[in-house]
């Protein structure tokens, strides 16, 4: 039985790395007594996979973990036990059964949306500068080295919140070569308008992931749409 779990990562635990998160989930699953399947081989590990990694310092209301169970289990019970075993600041919101053969979330998810909050930044000016530029080059570091990509290729959508002037909505590509870490994107935007002072990532702008999406029948849907129940 394959289960997709939607969970949050809140303010109080936002500085953990992706590796830390994986370790935490593994131990939480053990504490919760969830009958997770283990891989075969010399060094067996629990079968769990994650969607796009969340950078250190970013919060999220919808993250996804995909686990395989050895025996079926009631989903409300799974949710309850897992929540009990998780550190505060990580909470399971939903759990759904998905097709055993579903491709990995990593390969399916194509878009992630963010809410960027910063006091004292004129987002109109940022958006104007962004729209006006034909090319905004951003360095992207990966295992293969540093590449340069065009921010304009990485953004699906950018707009100011209608009510709260401190908030910017940013929708980014995920998964292909032009995908960009949200902090790099935000930093590039802030620099563009002269709002970012230093080279480092300036976390006085709070970056919050609001959702991740995949395409199904030509529509953007959340991963929960893979539910087969």
């Amino acid at each position, binding site marked *: 039985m394959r289960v997709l779990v939607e969970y949050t990562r809140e303010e*109080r*635990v936002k500085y*953990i*790395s992706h590796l*830390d998160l994986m*370790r935490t989930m*593994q131990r939480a699953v053990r*504490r919760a007594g969830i009958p997770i399947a283990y891989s075969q081989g010399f060094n067996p590990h629990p079968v769990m996979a994650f969607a796009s990694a969340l950078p250190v310092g970013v919060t999220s209301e919808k993250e996804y973990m995909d686990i395989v169970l050895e025996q079926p289990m009631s989903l409300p019970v799974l949710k309850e036990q897992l929540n009990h075993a998780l550190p505060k600041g990580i909470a399971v919101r939903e759990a759904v059964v998905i097709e055993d053969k579903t491709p990995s979330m990593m390969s399916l998810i194509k878009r992630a949306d963010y809410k960027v909050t910063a006091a004292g930044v004129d987002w109109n000016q940022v958006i104007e500068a962004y729209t006006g530029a034909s090319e905004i080059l951003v360095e992207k570091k990966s295992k293969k080295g540093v590449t340069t990509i065009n921010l304009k290729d990485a953004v699906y959508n950018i707009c100011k919140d209608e009510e709260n002037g401190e908030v910017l909505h940013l929708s980014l590509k995920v998964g292909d070569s032009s995908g960009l870490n949200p902090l790099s994107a935000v930093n590039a935007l802030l620099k563009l308008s002269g709002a970012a002072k230093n080279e480092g990532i300036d976390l006085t702008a709070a970056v919050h992931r609001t959702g991740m999406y995949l395409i199904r029948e030509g529509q953007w849907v959340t991963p929960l749409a893979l539910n087969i129940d």
Partner: protein
Amino acid sequence: MDKLLLDKIMGQVSKPARYMGNEYNMVEKDPDDVNIRFAFAFPDVYEVGMSHLGMKILYHLINERKDTYCERVFAPWVDMEEKMRENNISLFTLETKDPVSKFDFIGFTLQYEMSYTNILNMLDLAGIPLKAEDREEGHPFVIAGGPCAYNAEPLADFVDLVALGEGEELIGELLDLYADWKASGQSRISFLEQAARIPGIYVPRLYDVKYQEDGRILSVKPNTKAAPERITKRIVKDMDKVFYPEKIIVPFMDIVHDRIMLELFRGCTRGCRFCQAGMIYRPIRERNLDRLLELAERLVHSTGYEEMSLSSLSSSDYSQLEELVKQLMERFSHNRVALSLPSLRLDSFAKEFIQEMQKVRKTGLTFAPEAGTQRLRDVINKGVTREDLANTVTDAFRSGWNSIKLYFMIGLPTETEEDLQGIAELAKLVVDSYFQVDREIRQKGLNVTVSTSSFVPKPFTPFQWEPQDPIDLLREKQQYLKNALRSKYIEYNWHDPEVSFLEAVFARGDRRLGNVLLSAWRKGARFDGWAEHFKMDAWMEAFGENNIMPEFYANRKREKDEILPWDHIDAGVSKAFLWKEWQKALKGQTTQDCRVNCTGCGVSRLGEGLC
């Protein structure tokens, strides 16, 4: 703590999770609901501090008290320190992010001498006067404990109180006293004087040290009737009744020892003569099997850890080890909990264990013969023979191990070239043993690692009177071994002799070193145990400025009648016993394991039915 400001600097430092807290099983209390706030301070980074068993025990123990909130604080890494100073952020705890200066106590644990500058740095970052005598009403009391507290003299200027020995009972008595004192509105010094009456509490300020012209100590005497002539360490009598945490914090980050630690017993009966732990933690006190299984069960469930280690000085000496290992394996192998036995000794390491452990996981095997020849091993009373080593590694190679680590010390008393040669020979013996195992059976890719540390004479050991080898001589010895260990199967690691030299200075130091610590810290010394931050020049300048000859402490032979800086501390083991052991060492005579027969170390004085 200004959250925005904290967020800003957290984005600019490496591994911000070090300062975040909020781990699973972290204790949360409302500070307004408690009377006493205790900051448990570990003078090294999070990954090191969180690996420490004593901290886990005391943190959860203190938090059992309704009237006290114990929080954690670690030494900020250099990048964090820079940002904190830049932004005027005071040292804060992980739990509430409140400044440590608001707390009632700051408790430092002294695990190694090279963390002393971090203590000064943390006090400074907290905005607390460094010298105990400059602290006033409203400042926290600074208390230190742990193995180095047995000679805390180099820190005497900076700490208000020192806790000697095991803290589980003592800390409760101290906090009870504090609660009364706080309610009474008496002066700071009156608290210290009352605390000095608690057995195991040492208040350095209540003692005067006089020196002779040649620099040796003339006398150490209490300057008030409130303080006892000698301070005796505390020991917990019943290991089954004493508190042991059933929930421990599970860090998000990868830490040095990221696993459940099951403490089988305290103390050690072997009597290795270089080993301070083996002397100061006496006598041996075991937990019973059922209690251990119960604790293991609860810890596995409360943490989700996938690994458990048996943590005692010489775990394989546990009287029911076979039964324990068998039962742990039975209970937890279906939970996929791997068991590791870190401090195995060659002589009691039975073949079956190798087989048993293999079922779960196979990590590198570690052996510590400590010296290269039988003669020198007799001098240090390390009861391991060449045959033990050969047999054990052969069994290990037959069972599929291919990676062996060997630990030795250089610069031990009476060492000659032959003993160094002996190290190389033992390493070759291991290599030969491997090739004697059938090619079909042994695992490919032999890897033997030889590590040498440089001997540091420690207080409360039979070698406490001995000089350390000078730095140059240690270097020569390392060079000798580099040549002697040239082999494609052997890797040789050694410790920086300059660091060992400083360890030797501070391990047997006196109060005059306080100013050296201060000068070195002002010159930027911190994280001295980390090679990338170690600044020998700063240290040598600091000695010079204070007219202190470090060689006086590290490289000088002491006579039998010399008053040692720690003679007013009673660690249980008597000075007469240590001297007798030293004389036996010189004759190459061994002393038997005192489990078989009491060898009269003196610790049994500390309580009835202890040994």
